[in-house]
């Protein structure tokens, strides 16, 4: 079976249209206020049922979760297959790490099924929204330790934030299926992040340079996964940072604070870019 699969070759049927971060960020519109020092619309953008567009926004996020789960499945599966079993040095990974990745792939496959059924329940057709392939792109590194940092810590960390938000949405709306399913998937994601944190420490135990490089890579991916500040502590961000669950998954307070700062920077950078683009377009 082929190793190191490029993002362009992911198998999708004709219902799915793929996009990437470059195209996404080229969109010069913004859902948040972009005027300097202005907080958008004077109200929270958090994805809660009292938003006028709550259902549509929840459908879009749920679809994003579903395609994210497909890519997480593909990423975990690739990591289980792409590297030979060994002591963790070079391009090898411990056999037990392979087993964890196989278990994660099994979890993600279940999440895909759950997310597809939830999408159906919410009235979404598969492929109704574009699929951003940024998640899989983070899973394409040639260094397995970078994959742990990018996928298990950054991507699955984002999943913790998103599932917490959706679980609360279901709870507030009184949607029993959404709340229940998100809660169960959230428990898996905490486990996946914990696996990544543990393996990252173990595999780089005697290689501080490699660990530093991995954590640096994780910061780059974390900023990408902020989606221009769509996730963050600010009320302007639709998705909050799930600090408690991140703590359970092995993130330190300092690490979460760093992510929060990057989210804030990403939001301000995005607002500045949109402001410039709209001024240039004269709107």
């Amino acid at each position, binding site marked *: 079976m082929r190793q190191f699969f490029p993002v362009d070759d992911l198998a999708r049927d004709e219902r799915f249209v793929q996009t990437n971060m470059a195209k996404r960020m080229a969109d010069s519109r913004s859902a948040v206020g972009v005027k300097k020092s202005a907080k958008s619309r004077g109200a929270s953008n958090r994805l809660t049922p009292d938003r*006028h567009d*709550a259902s*549509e926004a929840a459908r879009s996020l749920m679809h994003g979760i579903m395609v994210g789960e497909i890519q997480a499945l593909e990423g975990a599966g690739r990591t289980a297959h792409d590297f030979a079993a060994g002591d963790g040095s070079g391009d090898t990974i411990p056999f037990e790490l392979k087993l964890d990745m196989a278990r994660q792939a099994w979890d993600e496959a279940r999440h895909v099924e759950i997310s597809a059924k939830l999408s159906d329940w919410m*009235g979404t057709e598969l492929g109704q929204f*574009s699929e951003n392939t940024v998640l899989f792109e983070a899973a394409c590194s040639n260094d397995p330790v970078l994959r742990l940092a990018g996928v298990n810590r950054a991507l699955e960390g984002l999943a913790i934030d998103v599932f917490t938000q959706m679980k609360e949405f279901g709870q507030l*709306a009184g949607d029993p299926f959404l709340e229940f399913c998100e809660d169960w998937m959230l428990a898996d994601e905490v486990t996946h992040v914990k696996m990544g944190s543990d393996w990252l420490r173990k595999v780089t135990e005697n290689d501080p340079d490699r660990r530093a490089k991995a954590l640096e890579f994780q910061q780059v991916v974390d900023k990408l996964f902020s989606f221009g500040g769509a996730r963050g502590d600010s009320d302007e961000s639709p998705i909050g940072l799930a600090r408690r669950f991140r703590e359970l998954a092995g993130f330190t307070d300092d690490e979460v604070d760093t992510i929060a700062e990057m989210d804030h920077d990403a939001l301000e950078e995005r607002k500045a870019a949109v402001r410039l683009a709209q001024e240039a377009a004269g709107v």
Partner: protein
Amino acid sequence: MSTIAVTPERFTLVAYDADRIAEITRGLAERLQLTNPIVIEVDERTPLGKMSASVDSASSDATIRLQLESGALEDTKNLTNFSDTRAHLSLGRLLLRASDRLRDDFADAPPDRDLTNAQNTAWKVYCGGRLERLGLAPIQQQYRYDFRNRFGFRDDVDTLFDRLWASENLGWHDLPG
């Protein structure tokens, strides 16, 4: 035939065509037998999809004003691109709402900006059923989910939804909210 004005006449942030928006609106107005002048304002600065309809009086020649954020006309598979299907559903819903507002029994309906989320959703469902009978293809499950979010995830709410979806000629006070 309705006179239709669309602003902006030329879009810069999204790949929309004002003439196409006017053409779709004209076709829908004819099917709804609306001959009023129609003014359409699209806010292309935001990807959100809020929309509203108003009439400047209750007279038969009142001007209908439709306001939409760009997301209401967007192809969600290809962001910033126009979707004919979405535009038919969004503009059709707004024209039905405007047509309701021209009726005496909708005189008490608050302006769209003052509607509660529940009132807005109930009216949306009432429009959704009529759009389906006009031959458009709204996804009923989406409307049902929106309705459940506002009124509860219960069997009696589903029954109410089914009644609203199948209804014609309701007045403002027939809508829940």
